[in-house]
């Protein structure tokens, strides 16, 4: 049973449903947040209607006094609809401000009606206005959270795609893989690169992996550790790892830092690394004729 303080609001939502949807749309247009370039009238109207329906359901079933908590189960539908609408709008390019204002615009038609209905009882009017304010504000804040989470997911997806593009594992020869590393190698990236490499070794049953670091800018202790760990993991899976592309400067840095490469093979150029690798898988290179 809804408390009396909310009965008015519920009444408005239920009896003037379609009108409110329209007026809300109107406010959204006036505030410039409808984005007709991205959403048709029909789509925006449908979004408003869904939201309003879920809003009404929530008011009917949940506590809206001082115990109001949008995380309650009774508001599950509304949260779901808010999340869906927000994601839809984010994916088409709506900004956070536009999204929040889109939701907040609902206050205008609701206040207008409250004012009309409560002309005689200012105290009740204020109570109800506060109630609506609290509710709609909470919705707007929630859409903001969903918005941010969605943006972060998009960024994460793009980051992963970029990572895959920039660190391809190439099968250079039968059972010989090569991984040309380019740029910086931070912990997160090193982790992903290593996972990708190991999965590929399994898939292609590769016996030798050449990790080429010609394109890696600086090799400090951290980077060296990542490389050695990767080499160790490759060995644990049963393949061999050759690190190639060690420049004189890198060699000096590594010695000065006291980095012990241990049993990992290292070569200064891919050429020698490749020759080694082919030998290991049973091939020899023969010159056919003079160039």
């Amino acid at each position, binding site marked *: 049973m809804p408390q009396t303080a909310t009965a008015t609001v519920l009444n408005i939502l239920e009896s003037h449903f379609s009108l409110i949807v329209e007026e809300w749309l109107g406010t959204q247009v006036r505030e410039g947040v409808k984005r007709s370039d991205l959403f048709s009238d029909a789509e925006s109207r449908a979004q408003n209607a869904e939201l309003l329906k879920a809003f009404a359901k929530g008011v009917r079933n949940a506590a809206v006094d001082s115990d109001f908590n949008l995380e309650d189960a009774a508001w599950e539908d509304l949260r779901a609809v808010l999340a869906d609408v927000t994601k839809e709008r984010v994916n088409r390019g709506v900004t956070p401000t536009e999204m929040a204002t889109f939701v907040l615009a609902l206050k205008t038609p609701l206040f207008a009606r409250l004012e009309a209905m409560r002309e005689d009882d200012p105290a009740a009017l204020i109570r109800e206005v506060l109630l609506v304010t609290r509710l709609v504000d909470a919705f707007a804040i929630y859409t903001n959270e969903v918005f941010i989470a969605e943006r972060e997911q998009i960024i994460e997806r793009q980051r992963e795609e970029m990572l895959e593009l920039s660190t391809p594992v190439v099968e250079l020869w039968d059972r010989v893989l090569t991984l040309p590393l380019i740029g910086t190698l931070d912990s997160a990236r090193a982790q992903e690169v290593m996972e990708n490499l190991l999965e590929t070794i399994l898939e292609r049953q590769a016996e030798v992996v050449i990790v080429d670091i010609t394109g890696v800018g600086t090799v400090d202790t951290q980077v060296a550790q990542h490389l050695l*760990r990767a080499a160790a993991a490759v060995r*644990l*899976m*049963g*393949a061999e790892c050759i690190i190639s592309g060690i420049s004189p400067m890198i060699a000096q840095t590594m010695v000065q830092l006291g980095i012990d490469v241990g049993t990992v093979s290292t070569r200064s150029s891919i050429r020698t690394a490749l020759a080694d690798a082919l030998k290991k898988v049973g091939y020899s290179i023969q010159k056919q004729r003079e160039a």
Partner: protein
Amino acid sequence: MSGVTSIHLVENALLVSIQDDVTDTEIVDLQDSLSHRIAAESVRGVVLDISALEIVDTFVGRVIAQLAGISRLLDAETYVVGMRPAVAVTLVELGMYLPETRTALSLTHALSQLRRG
């Protein structure tokens, strides 16, 4: 459910497949029984297939390393095959590089290495 491990003798090498739900006790017993069999049957090698293991922690890693050492003293080489990528990454993160243990991509690879002596 017990991690029933199967052991076969192929080309003078012991093939051991370890199951995913193997317990600490079973692993230690395995190490023990393998050591005895290596000596008793003049085995040249042990191939430990851990492809069924989703989780290999430092204890199991240590037992494997010990088995490699023991077998070497008894004139046999131990090869670990089938390590899953996720396991390899995790072991390395735990600092277990198992340097004294030989590894191979598969049973076939291990056997061919054993053949070469």
